[in-house]
């Protein structure tokens, strides 16, 4: 299987401060990759660099064998990459339904109406609350909304930034279970940034470990998860 996403020498800087020092990573078609690391390692920056948002990025980024480095965020979205940012990024003053509608903003095909039902199928709680203002939802529900909004794009690749952040363990389990379902049923590739290494390694096929802007470890998540010394040294469990 070829990679749906590949980077070579991806670097990024905020102003004059260099945060990423040349990353080479890849996400297989239909695969789930997780990016692990401590705070400040550069995980969020990586996702931002992929979308060309807020950072000055350099290096090669290939999506479906097409160079996308330097493209505008709005165009990258139209190519089929959906980014669920850290902090969820929901439109808090708009309703749940309006948030979803915005997710499908760039789509011109006729399948949008069914996609609402599909998404409500994954997250029935959202259907109950569809006319509610997004800001009144709980943290877990907002995360579900953020993921759903991304799904409304019918993305080929889903970027997720710390989806477990601030959520109760049971909620996190539910969300990750649904992510696995989405990946299996629709073949959506995923790049997942996480601080919660254990649950991320359960979901993902491959893992990269980031430290101060460099990849210091990579491999199958099963291998990494079973290596106790690695786990204790880098992943905290």
């Amino acid at each position, binding site marked *: 299987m070829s990679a749906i996403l590949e980077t070579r020498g991806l670097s990024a800087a905020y102003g004059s401060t260099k945060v990423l020092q040349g990353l080479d990573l890849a996400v297989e078609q239909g695969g789930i990759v997780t990016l692990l690391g401590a705070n400040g390692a550069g995980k969020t920056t990586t996702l931002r660099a992929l979308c060309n948002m807020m950072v000055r990025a350099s290096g090669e980024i290939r999506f479906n064998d097409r160079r996308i480095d330097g493209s505008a965020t709005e165009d990258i*979205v139209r190519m089929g990459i959906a980014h669920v940012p850290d902090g969820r990024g929901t439109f808090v003053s708009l309703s749940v339904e309006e948030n979803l509608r*915005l997710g499908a903003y760039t789509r011109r095909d006729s399948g949008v109406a069914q996609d609402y039902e599909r998404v409500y199928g994954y997250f029935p709680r959202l259907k109950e609350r569809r006319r509610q203002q997004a800001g009144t939802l709980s943290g877990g529900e907002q995360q579900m909304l953020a993921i759903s909004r991304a799904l409304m794009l019918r993305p080929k690749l889903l970027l997720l930034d710390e989806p477990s952040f601030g959520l109760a363990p049971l909620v996190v389990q539910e969300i990750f279970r649904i992510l696995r379902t989405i990946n299996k049923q629709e073949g959506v590739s995923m790049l997942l940034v996480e601080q919660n290494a254990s649950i991320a390694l359960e979901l993902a096929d491959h893992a990269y470990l980031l430290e101060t802007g460099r990849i210091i470890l990579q491999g199958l998540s099963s291998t990494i998860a079973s290596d106790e010394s690695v786990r204790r040294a880098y992943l905290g469990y």
Partner: protein
Amino acid sequence: MPACFAMPGTELLHQVLSGIANGGIYASVALALVMIYQATHHVNFAQGEMAMFSTYIALLLINLGLPYWVAFFLTLVFAFVFGLGIERLVVRWFNASPVLSVVAVFIGLLLIINGAAGAEFDYTIKPFPSPFPSNAWYGSPFMSSHEVGMISVTLIVLAAVFVFFRFTPLGLAMRAAAQNPASSRLVGVRVGWMLALGWGLAGLIGAVAGMMAAHVVYLEPNMMSGILLYGFAAALIGGIDNPWGAALGGPIVGVLENLAGACIGTELKLSVALVTIIGVLTVRPSGLFGRTLVTRV
């Protein structure tokens, strides 16, 4: 003290209704100001001049022989393009500039448009027709037909704007872009163009205000400065980031203006606007419906 306390009921009613009618103009200006403020946190000091210039274009079209409403709609198109053009060509470069620079740019635009109007159309005061005949059936001693017309037009415009923002995908995208530009980009909304559209709409709404007002205050390059002040007052009363507030603030200011005019005399009406503005800003900066503004220490 004033005659205003001894005002007969019919006179009071007339002042109030007339105030509401004028309030339509102020509400439109206020709405235009709020639209731009919501998206950019800038106050468009040139809003009045943009409206005035559009009104001159309307007069031009009418003098060319076009029927009023045709000229009206063509002017709306002009005003939309005008507003959009100003954003794309001038304002967008200063979005991240310090406050003083932005204020200077807006004042610069005010001057250019004012000077251009004066140079191109001269400074003589010109009458502007009303599409509402003075002897129409809906006129009365309490409200002239033009005043009824003004309220109707304002309501139609407000309704159209509401429908646009609430029920169209573009309106939704614009709302999103104003509230959360970063997330908007992540769903593919081109935020810069949404801002430009906002300016276009604001220009359009301002033009409506200008054309309604010109019949009452007569068309000349400085006709909108006082009205702009009332627009500021209305926007502030309603809450400068709340479009509904603008719609309500307009009639409130209009009625206040008339009642104060009856009490203190009509020559001090602008001072009423001034006092209102300062009063709202110092006592309750978020207005009646706005979110609370954070005032720095």
